C-alpha cells in the first residue's frame, strides 16, 4: 500500500502530514451484486524517528478511505522518518522521508 508523507521542520518542531492509500472497507458494504465486500482496513500505522516511535495509531473499520494523519515531534531538517503500516489482511506498507 502506498504511503505519502510530508515532513517539514520549523523552530525545532517537525510537522508531519501523511496519507495512506487504503480502501478501508468496513465489511458491511455490499457490491453491485448484493454481496458483502470483505472487511479490509488498516490495523496499525507507526512512524519512527532515530529509533523512537513518534506516532502510533491503531485503526479499525470506523476510519474512512485513504486516511489522512498529522502529528508533530522534535527534530531537524535532514532527519529520516520511517513510516510503516499493516492491515487486517496482513498487507504492509513502508515509506521513508527526509525532513525538509
Amino acid at each position, binding site marked *: 500500500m502506498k504511503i*505519502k508523507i*510530508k515532513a517539514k521542520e520549523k523552530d525545532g518542531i517537525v510537522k508531519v*502530514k501523511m*496519507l495512506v*492509500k487504503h480502501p478501508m472497507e468496513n465489511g458491511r458494504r455490499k457490491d453491485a451484486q448484493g454481496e458483502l465486500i470483505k472487511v479490509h482496513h488498516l490495523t496499525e500505522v507507526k512512524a519512527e524517528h532515530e529509533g523512537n516511535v513518534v506516532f502510533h495509531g491503531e485503526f479499525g473499520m470506523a476510519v474512512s478511505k*485513504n486516511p*489522512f494523519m498529522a502529528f508533530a515531534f522534535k527534530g531537524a531538517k535532514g532527519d529520516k522518518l520511517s513510516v510503516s503500516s499493516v492491515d487486517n489482511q496482513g498487507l504492509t506498507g513502508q515509506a521513508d522521508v527526509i525532513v525538509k
Partner: protein
Amino acid sequence: MFNWRKVTGWLLLVLSTAAIAEQYNLGKPASEKVIAGWDIDVRPDGLGLPKGSGSVEEGEALYDQKCANCHGSFGEGEGRWPKLAGGEDTLRDERPEKTVGSYWPYASTLWDYIHRAMPFNAPQSLATDEVYAITAYVLNLNELVDGEFVLTQDNLATIEMPNKNGFYVDNRPDVANPRCMKNCKDPESIKVIATIAGITPTDHFKHDGNDGVAYQESAVGVTATPEVVKTYQNACKMCHDTGLNDAPKTGDVAAWQKRLNQGKPAIYNNALKGINGMPAKGGRTDLSDEMVKSIVDYMLELSE
C-alpha cells in the same frame, strides 16, 4: 498560436470596434497586446502553451504554499474544497469521485485551468513557470508522473490521462422545444417532482451560513461578542487560520508581535484599506469599520 478561424474572428471584432469608434467615438481598437491577454486557451495538442518549464519538486513547494489549504496536502481536499487526486476506478460507482486523475481527459486542461482560475482567491497571479511546476506536481499527486519529472511546453501534450477514452461524442439529436403560443398546459398543473433542496447543502452560500454544521469556536477567555467571532469565521478565517498567501495566522504570537510594533492604528488601517495580499476589509466591504476593528481586536487577543 495560429488559427485562421480565430484570427478572422478577432479581425472582425477589431474592424467592427474601429467602425463603431469612428461612428460614435466609443471604445478603442484592441491592440495586439490586449488580444494576447485574452487569447490564453491551451489545446490538448499543446497549441497555445507559452514557453516554459517547471519541476515536480518546485511545484510541491508552490502547491503547499498556495493550494494545499483548500485542496489538501495530497490533493485529498480540505473540508468541502474539491479533491484534485484519487478516485481511480470510481466513475461507475454510485458516487463517482471525479478528479484530475480519475476524470479529466487532457493534461492541457489542468494547465489552462490553473493558469486561468487558481488560486481561487488570486486567479492569474501565477507566473508561467509556476503554472508548469504546479501542474507537474498535481500530475505527480495523481501518480501520472514521477518525482523527478520536469514539465515543459513540449512534453505536456504527450501525457496520457487515464480517462482519455472515457468520453464520446453525444450524437443524439436535439430535442424539439417549440414555444407554445396557444392551448398551452396550465402551469399550475405542472408538478416539480425533484429538487436539489435538502440534498446539496446551500447554507454556506449565505454570508452568515456555516455549512449547516453547528460548530462553535471555543471562546475561553475571549471578550469578543459571538457576532464578531462569527464574522471572523466567515470573512477572515479562510486566510488567517490557514496562513494563506502568508497571512499572519491567528494565534501565531511572534507574527503578530512583529506587526504590533507599528502600532494599533496602523494595523486597523491596513485591515480597513488592505495591504499586499490582504484585501480591504478582507474583501468584505459590506462590513462596517467598527466590525472590522472589533475582529482585529479579537485576532490580536487570540495572538497575545
